[in-house]
């Protein structure tokens, strides 16, 4: 019933959902959708323009860009969703404790968050990757960590204002414990800003992964993450602009999909709009 409502009232959200679902499908069905092996080198086809055989053209090693972009979907989805999940879970825990209990808990937690936020995200990631070593899971950990403060702040803000609300006082007057109040009353009322933050952060993570790959600190090549494809394309912009266009478009579409669906989901979950 929630989905029929989406169908009726928020067609844009439906488009977002469709984009996300297509990406998921492509990621799962990659071996069947891709036309070539994304890692297979074929120097003779170097820089081949888009054709029936190489739908998006070929890169500097003659690898089929189309297939690389298709497989790249797996990396982008996996990394972005997992990272945001980490950021969200820890951000909610820290933000809720800081906002609900206040005083020294708030001070300690938020100063720590400030410290993390004071370092530019990329630098922080570089630092973490340098310590942990560049591989896929470390990218997830690094990106997950970097975005915790953003969630913590949003949740803390919501919790601060909700804590004053009279329905929370009513719950306390019934003798409910803090945990119950947080789980039953406070956190459910934080879902709107959380969803919005999550969808924008998903977008940032995908782009951040691309930046990291640019710097050679993301998923190590020859893994066909969109970031890697883009970073490789950079050196050959003049000869073969197609190499950059397709991963760029893929990134933009997925980011757009998350944003549109995120907005629709937030509205959907608001009982006031039912």
């Amino acid at each position, binding site marked *: 019933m929630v989905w029929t409502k989406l169908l009726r009232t928020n067609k844009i959200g439906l488009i977002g959902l469709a984009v996300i679902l297509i990406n998921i499908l492509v990621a799962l069905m990659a071996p069947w959708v891709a036309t070539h092996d994304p890692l297979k080198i074929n120097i003779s086809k170097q820089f081949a323009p888009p054709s029936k055989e190489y739908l998006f053209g070929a890169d500097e090693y003659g690898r089929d860009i189309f297939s690389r972009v298709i497989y790249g979907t797996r990396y982008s989805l996996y990394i972005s969703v997992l990272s945001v999940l980490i950021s969200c879970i820890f951000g909610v825990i820290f933000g809720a404790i800081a906002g609900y209990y206040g005083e020294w808990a708030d001070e300690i937690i938020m100063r720590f968050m400030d410290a993390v936020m004071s370092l530019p995200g990329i630098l922080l990631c570089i630092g973490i990757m340098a310590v942990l070593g560049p591989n896929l899971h470390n990218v997830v950990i690094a990106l997950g960590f970097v975005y915790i403060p953003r969630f913590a702040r949003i949740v803390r803000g919501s919790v601060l204002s909700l804590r004053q609300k009279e329905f929370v*006082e009513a719950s306390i007057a019934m003798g409910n414990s803090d945990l119950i109040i947080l789980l039953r009353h406070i956190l*459910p009322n934080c879902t709107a800003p959380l969803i919005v933050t999550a969808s924008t952060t998903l977008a940032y993570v995908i782009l951040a992964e691309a930046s990291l790959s640019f710097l050679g600190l993301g998923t190590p090549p020859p893994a066909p993450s969109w970031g890697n494809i883009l970073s490789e394309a950079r050196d050959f912009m003049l000869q073969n602009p197609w190499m950059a266009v397709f991963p760029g478009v893929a990134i933009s579409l997925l980011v757009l999909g998350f944003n549109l669906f995120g907005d629709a989901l937030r509205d959907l979950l608001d009982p006031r709009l039912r």
Partner: protein
Amino acid sequence: MRGLMSVTEPLLKVENLKKYFPSRKGLFARTPSPVRAVDGIDFEIYPGETFSLVGESGCGKSTTGRLILRLIEPTEGQIWFQGNDITALGRKAMRPFRKSMQIIFQDPYSSLDPRMTIKDIIGEGLKRYDNLKPQQRRDMILEMMSKVGLRSEHYNHYPHEFSGGQRQRIGIARAIILNPKLVVADEPLSALDVSIQAQVINLMQKLKHELHLSYLLITHDLSVVEHISNRIAVMYLGKIVELASRDQLFSQPSHPYTKALFSAIPIPKVGQRKQRIILKGDVPSPINPPSGCRFHPRCHYTQKICAELPPALKEIEMGHWAACHFPPHE
């Protein structure tokens, strides 16, 4: 501080209750002056009575309501409920008492969780206290709904689908489902339309008789107070300035502030414009209350002693107390 019904034991007794909030001012001052929201009040509420706490903004009445329920911690003083000292009880020890003391709020819009259905809102209290089967719980909730005048088909609806008056009824149902003995009602009518106020007042009266409740009614609306109270305390700047039964207070208000308050109420009857007692100035800040009698700077009958010595509550007649050096005034 006994009223005319001193035969039974009080349900609630409050002694020298104080609440000071730290004020933000004076970051660099040695000891910043606190906001003396409630500054030493005493009263009792008996079973089955409506006790009203009246006053204007900043007098401390809302804070008092929350102190009694331990939603805020008192700075000083004691609170007895059903004979037990609940002033400093921990969370766990408070729980059995919480069933018996509930609260209704002023704002029907922020007092209900917008993400919960009204069956969950009303039934929330049941989850903690009774091991009821789902069917029993459902029946109790429906019974409460009908008691407060809500139709059963609204069982699964959300707060935003109701009007202000209906939401207030939901709040009342939530409060009474645990069968409390004392209900603190914090300005329950101020946010409602006039015609709806009558409905809610009648409902509160009906429930009081059916369930043998006591109310601590906190309000600034004197007409309502006269209509439903048994006893009344008038507060000003954190202190009780007059305490009496309804009839005593309305026939013979003794404290100058009470008289000014009464004369300020606009009456829906046509005549010449009332000769009002217009008070000078604004309500002073509770951070730095005036010396001696707190009301003296605005009082028309001020004398020298009023600025020097705070007047104690004196019994003018049986059950009627006023904190003034020169009561009553004609």
